[in-house]
């Protein structure tokens, strides 16, 4: 086994380590190990053990420079366009034009959005207010604290409901679930005010209760809700919730598998990145590679303290949204003011349910197209495909080149790692820390 510490200036080439079989990158806590294909599944079994000092084993892959005319799969091209457009959008937002006058400006990107007589700023900024689509026939599942079934703004909407909280009906005793459903699917002309706050005004609402009246739930309730959403053909499964994740902690395999099954069923899971601060990792389950993580922007389309680290972020929420929510609560549920928890997240269905469904049919691929081809303040990209701001400019420069240098391909379609087959002699040949060639993390 070789170590980067053995080489001057830590410059190591493949030839240097040909005979060593393994190379430890001292400063990264990562080792490259040559193994037989048969050993890989054994290694994964070791890694799956929660107490294993090795958090993950991944096959080493080649990275290629991209050339025009190469025959890339459409999915990859889509991803690259989406990536480019999201970066364009971020740059555009960094370089805000002064607000213009008139109807065209109304629909264009503005520096700051405000409420008008008939619109809150959210539907304006996401351009839902100017879309010909209204979510008709689209099923949007919101997994949260339930739904206020007697809310006047939703009279005549016939939601499909289910509670996965033992001992509690779907009726919302908290307020957050009703708020999220309102933001995602609220009516065009809300009772009393006529000021629109909802996005997919005519979507079919699936209200799944996975958090109790106090706002708490468990992974198993949430997973049961996802399962229900898929069985009821939800195109979007929206979860404005999350558990804190420590730096270095991985995502949960259960949510990742659920999300991959959802993608295969043409359904997209969206979850809140985090609202707890700028310097915390994206929370669980939004940190899964196959879940779209979203965070908050304010009405000036700027990231706020609520944004989680590493999330490029994309929907927006500020006092205007919170007020709109408060109206919900005060008018009807007589609840206290809701803090702007993850309320940015439910606005996500605009590109995913309305525009793209109309143009491309339902599904994740279409959502990506819709998102990618519609740069602007509504651009949303999965967390794992986002770059921290410092990387945006260099990446944009790279993407603008006719002959693009290396880009690492998308990972979210990667199949689940193979587990040993049933009946295999498990652990046979499994690697132990004592064996040569296996490196443990620091």
């Amino acid at each position: 086994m070789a170590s980067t510490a053995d080489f001057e200036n830590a410059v190591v080439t493949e030839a240097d380590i040909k005979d060593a079989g393994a190379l430890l990158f001292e400063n990264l806590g990562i080792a490259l190990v040559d193994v037989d294909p048969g050993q890989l599944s054994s290694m994964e079994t070791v890694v799956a053990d929660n107490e294993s000092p090795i958090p993950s084993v991944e096959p080493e892959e080649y990275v290629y420079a991209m050339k025009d005319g190469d025959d890339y799969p459409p999915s990859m091209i889509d991803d690259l366009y989406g990536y480019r457009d999201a970066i364009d959008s971020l740059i555009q937002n960094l370089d805000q034009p002064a607000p213009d006058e008139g109807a065209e400006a109304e629909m264009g990107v503005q520096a700051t959005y405000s409420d008008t007589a008939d619109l809150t700023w959210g539907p304006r900024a996401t351009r839902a207010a100017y879309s010909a689509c209204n979510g008709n026939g689209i099923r949007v599942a919101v997994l949260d604290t339930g739904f206020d079934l007697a809310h006047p703004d939703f009279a005549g909407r016939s939601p499909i409901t289910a509670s996965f909280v033992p001992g509690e009906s779907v009726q919302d005793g908290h307020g957050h679930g009703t708020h999220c459903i309102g933001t995602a699917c609220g009516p065009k002309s809300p009772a009393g005010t006529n000021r629109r706050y909802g996005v997919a005004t005519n979507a079919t609402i699936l209200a799944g209760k996975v958090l109790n009246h106090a706002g708490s739930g468990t992974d198993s309730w949430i997973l049961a809700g996802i399962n229900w959403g898929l069985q009821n053909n939800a195109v979007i499964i929206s979860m404005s919730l999350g558990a804190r994740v420590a730096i270095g902690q991985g995502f949960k395999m259960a949510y990742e598998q659920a999300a991959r099954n959802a993608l295969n069923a043409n359904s997209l899971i969206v979850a809140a990145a985090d609202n707890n601060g700028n310097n915390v990792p994206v929370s669980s389950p939004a940190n899964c590679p196959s879940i779209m993580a979203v965070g908050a922007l304010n009405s000036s389309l700027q990231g706020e303290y609520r944004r989680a680290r590493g999330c490029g972020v994309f929907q927006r929420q500020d006092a205007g949204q919170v007020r709109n929510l408060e109206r919900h609560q005060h008018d009807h549920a007589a609840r206290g003011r809701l803090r702007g928890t993850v309320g940015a997240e439910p606005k996500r269905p605009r590109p995913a349910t309305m525009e793209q469904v109309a143009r491309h049919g339902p599904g994740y691929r279409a959502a990506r197209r819709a998102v990618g081809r519609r740069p602007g303040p509504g651009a949303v990209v999965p967390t794992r495909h986002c770059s921290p701001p410092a990387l945006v400019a260099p990446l944009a420069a790279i993407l603008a080149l006719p002959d693009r240098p290396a880009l690492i391909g998308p990972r979210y379609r990667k199949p689940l790692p193979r587990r040993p087959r049933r009946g295999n002699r498990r652990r046979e040949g499994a690697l132990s820390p004592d064996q040569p060639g296996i490196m443990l993390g620091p």
Partner: protein
Amino acid sequence: MTERMISVVLTLALEAQGDSERLVAELKALGLRNENLLAAIGIVTGQVPETSLDRLRAMPGIVVEVDEEVSILPPDAPVL
């Protein structure tokens, strides 16, 4: 003294999903209770005796994760 039960989320690998009913029966023999098979996503949730965890983790085709709490702020939390 009753044994301590742990709430778990079991992710079934694709190979295991084909025969999930039999697998659940096998899991019940290991002490799985209040089981819920989520067929659309290949996941089983439930409670297992703490002493069965090691054997469960050793089963091929299954990833064992602890069922943890997720929460948002309580309804009376102040607006920041």
